[in-house]
């Protein structure tokens, strides 16, 4: 028998390349979508957390009796009540579930309460009496470095270490601690199963790794705990780490009742990790023609009290320290310090944001020193496919359209001088139009996609026929980015079936999808869906000797030979695991094929500045971004517009102010988020090319918008004011004084 020639699936409505609307859109618009905050069960108790008011202290005694004696309180738990591993952590298990001995950061959890209503729970948490012996906190990361309080050190040496160039620029740069500030705070519900196990429904980005940590600290077997996906109000890195997960389960198991917990905004600011504040020293040496002869950098990220993802964020900052440029003589030293500051970890851009501000400022200074056009300087050094990556030495194997990004960006039209009705300072309107100076700045950035340094980065997905079409099952978390849309699109195109829905399933029903981070889900979970769907289609066609699969069923020579109803009755399904191309761990000089893929993006910011008042308004941020293939162009634009806004936030307003280890502005009144009046216009150009290993050539798109947007805005402010601008966010006093 000769195999029938199979037609490739025809273009399916709602498939890859369409700007398909979100399947979760209608419930979200009607108010019926269930977020973790909304979960409830009859008889559920409310949980609350007692937190340390000190950044560093010894716990002398904990007296829970004042809390227990409050009517309606069902349980008060301390470190002694943690049944299993007393610590947890994403990469290193170093963070106490509840502090038992020493407090290492402000807001560290000490005790837990379950009570009949929220107010009682909060009151009881405040009533727990903890006697502290206050210790001197270590809050200066420079001193931590000297004392070798480090989570990781990275040393990169590549090429001739004696190389030098005649044109030298040096600089010192700082970026502040930024908060992800998703609009939904941490929340969840834990429900005991009556047999010693528990079901957990809580905000997350990485279900299976939450599950592992919860299981370990509860001292249960893996099958006794099920972590379920829930509705999530944004994430941006803040939900990679465990926070209330183990606490909720402990309270539920102890009381035998469902327990619900919702952090309020100020608790949220202490309840999750932040973007690392950075200190960066740079020295660039160039030849007279502008080519980079040598780049040296020293990078210090303050990891705060516990490891979280600091080792990986530091790795990113260090490996991306040169940016999307070629250079054959590189020395980078990175350190992630341990202090008594709030723990830092994942936030969109993951280490690549901080260094981009530094290296792009250096590139502008170098252009100045060379009297060269800054775009031309960048073009001259642009890294592209086939080149050696400046830090790790690996050859860039996937498409890297750095030059196209630069050239398209420079070619985009600039706004007319008058184009802005809004003046710096917003509704205060103290600015007079004649004082306003306009500035334009460019920056480009690069980041890895997917996990690096030899991490086994995989995702599992299942595609099965059900109802009147197909269902995709995954544990990958939808945080708002639109994964639920794009996975369905991939399955539609691969199967040839338009009726596809995505079902998020719990940890007992499927293997890990990995984390919703590192811009990886479209590529890695998308890859798993593509693999499962393609295999399923082939198996079905082979089995029925058909030549096409559509919503009607299996076709042969254009006739339906098996209906979709019959296929569904046969319970067709396929489970597949996708791994991205393997990477290696770094050698002692940071060399190796550490990254599986890269993306570049560039931004051009236009700002209006009132130099007397120090006020800035970002008029527009135009961008060109390397996307591989835009599977849902409008969703990509959504990522770009939102990501740029967060980059603008870091450039001009967002800063967690930490003094002596204490966050001084843990609320939305004092931690400023960009409003609709701060939002710049955005014109975006998506640069597509074939050759990435993502489904249909797609690259991750979530992080690149935040990498260089901050640097571009800072450059524009520099251009408008002539000030050095060596720190972000730029404060009024950095401009006006």
């Amino acid at each position: 028998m000769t195999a029938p020639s199979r037609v490739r699936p025809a273009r399916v409505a709602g498939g890859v390349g369409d700007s398909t609307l979100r399947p979760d859109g209608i419930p979200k618009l009607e108010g019926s979508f269930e977020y973790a905050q909304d979960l409830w069960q009859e008889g559920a108790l409310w949980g609350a957390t007692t937190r340390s008011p000190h950044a560093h202290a010894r716990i002398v005694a904990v007296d829970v009796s004042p809390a227990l004696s409050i009517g309606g309180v069902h349980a008060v738990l301390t470190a002694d009540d943690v049944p299993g591993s007393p610590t947890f952590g994403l990469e290193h298990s170093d963070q106490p579930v509840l502090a038992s001995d020493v407090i290492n950061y402000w807001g560290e959890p000490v005790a837990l309460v379950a009570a009949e209503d929220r107010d009682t729970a909060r009151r009881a948490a405040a009533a727990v009496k903890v006697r502290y012996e206050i210790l001197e906190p270590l809050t200066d990361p420079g001193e931590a470095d000297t004392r070798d309080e480090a989570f990781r050190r990275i040393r990169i040496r590549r090429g001739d270490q004696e190389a030098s160039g005649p044109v030298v620029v040096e600089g010192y740069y700082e970026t502040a601690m930024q908060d992800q500030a998703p609009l939904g705070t941490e929340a969840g519900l834990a429900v005991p199963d009556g047999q010693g196990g528990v079901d957990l429904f809580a905000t997350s980005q990485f279900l299976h790794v939450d599950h592992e940590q919860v299981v370990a600290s509860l001292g249960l077997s893996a099958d006794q705990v099920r972590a379920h996906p829930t509705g999530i109000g944004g994430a941006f890195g803040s939900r990679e780490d465990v926070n209330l997960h183990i606490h909720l389960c402990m309270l539920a198991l102890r009381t035998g009742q469902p327990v619900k917990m919702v952090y309020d905004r100020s608790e949220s600011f202490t309840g999750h990790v932040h973007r690392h504040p950075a200190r960066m020293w740079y020295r660039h040496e160039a030849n007279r023609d502008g080519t980079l002869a040598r780049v040296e950098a020293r990078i210090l990220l303050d990891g705060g009290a516990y490891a979280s993802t600091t080792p990986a964020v530091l790795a990113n900052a260090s490996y991306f320290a040169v940016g999307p440029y070629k250079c054959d003589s590189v020395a980078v030293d990175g350190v992630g310090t341990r202090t008594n500051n709030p723990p830092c970890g994942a936030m969109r851009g993951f280490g690549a944001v901080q260094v981009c501000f530094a290296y792009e400022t250096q590139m502008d200074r170098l252009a100045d020193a060379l009297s060269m056009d800054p775009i031309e300087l960048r073009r001259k050094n642009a890294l592209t496919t086939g080149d050696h990556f400046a830090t790790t030495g690996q050859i860039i194997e996937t498409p890297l359209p750095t030059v196209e990004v630069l050239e398209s960006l420079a070619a985009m039209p600039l706004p007319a001088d008058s184009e802005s009705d809004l003046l710096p300072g917003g509704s205060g309107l103290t600015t007079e139009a004649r004082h306003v100076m306009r500035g334009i700045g460019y920056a480009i950035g690069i980041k890895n996609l997917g996990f690096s340094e030899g991490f086994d980065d995989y995702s599992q997905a299942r595609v099965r026929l059900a109802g009147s079409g197909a269902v995709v099952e995954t544990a990958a978390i939808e945080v708002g980015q639109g994964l639920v849309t794009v996975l369905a699109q991939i399955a539609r195109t691969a199967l040839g079936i338009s009726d596809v829905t995505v079902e998020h399933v719990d940890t007992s029903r499927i293997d890990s999808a990995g984390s919703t981070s590192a811009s990886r889900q479209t590529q890695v979970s998308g890859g798993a869906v593509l693999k499962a769907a393609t295999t399923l289609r082939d198996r079905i066609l082979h089995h029925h000797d058909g030549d096409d699969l559509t919503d009607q069923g299996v076709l042969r020579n254009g006739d339906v030979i098996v209906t979709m109803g019959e296929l569904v009755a046969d319970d067709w399904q396929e489970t597949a695991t996708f791994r991205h191309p393997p990477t290696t761990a770094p050698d002692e000089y940071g060399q190796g094929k550490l990254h599986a893929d890269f993306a570049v993006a560039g931004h051009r910011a236009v700002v209006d500045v009132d130099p007397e008042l120090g006020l800035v308004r970002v008029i527009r941020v135009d961008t060109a971004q390397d996307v591989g293939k835009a599977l849902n162009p409008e969703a990509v634009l959504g990522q770009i517009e939102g990501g740029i806004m967060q980059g603008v936030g870091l450039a001009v307003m967002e800063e967690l102010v930490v003094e002596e280890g204490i966050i001084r502005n843990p609320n939305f009144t004092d931690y400023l988020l960009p409003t609709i009046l701060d939002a710049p216009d955005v014109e975006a150009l998506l640069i597509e090319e074939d050759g990435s290993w993502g489904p249909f050539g797609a690259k991750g798109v979530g992080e690149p918008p935040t990498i260089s947007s901050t640097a571009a805005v800072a450059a524009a402010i520099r251009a408008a004011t002539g000030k050095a601008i060596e720190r972000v966010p730029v404060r009024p006093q950095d401009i006006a004084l």
Partner: protein
Amino acid sequence: MEVSMTVNGRAVSADVEPRTLLVHFLRENLRLTGTHVGCETGYCGACTVHVDGKAVKSCTMLAVQAEGADVKTIESLASNGNLHPVQEGFWERHGLQCGFCTPGMIMASVALLDENNNPSEDEIRHGIEGNLCRCTGYHNIVRAVEYAGAKMRGEEPPPPDWEGGE
């Protein structure tokens, strides 16, 4: 304390603690969880509802202050399975990602358009400036409100940005 009001056209009354915020009354007593809490300090607008026709941040108001009032939440907007033009605008113009800000954004936008169904872009921005969104960068939210305004005026909404080229 006993409190009575009309919520989404239905008379409700309950015994609440005097300090209960309107938002918690709606979410917990009435289980109307479409109204969200993003900050509880009057800053983010996720909790925006209508009280006697005006957009109000329901975390800035006690339940007892709404005594006798006519309260409308996001759950009341769609009728007979038809989205309100503002909901339709957010849907058609990709005005949401995580959606956590969306009910508040929509309620604020409805109040804006009820007063002025032909706002300029600046009027839209000023009209909903009390509502934060962390995901979208706001661009599509403005487009969504423009779409809704056109619908409410009986006009054809402007085409989406991503159609018909630059």
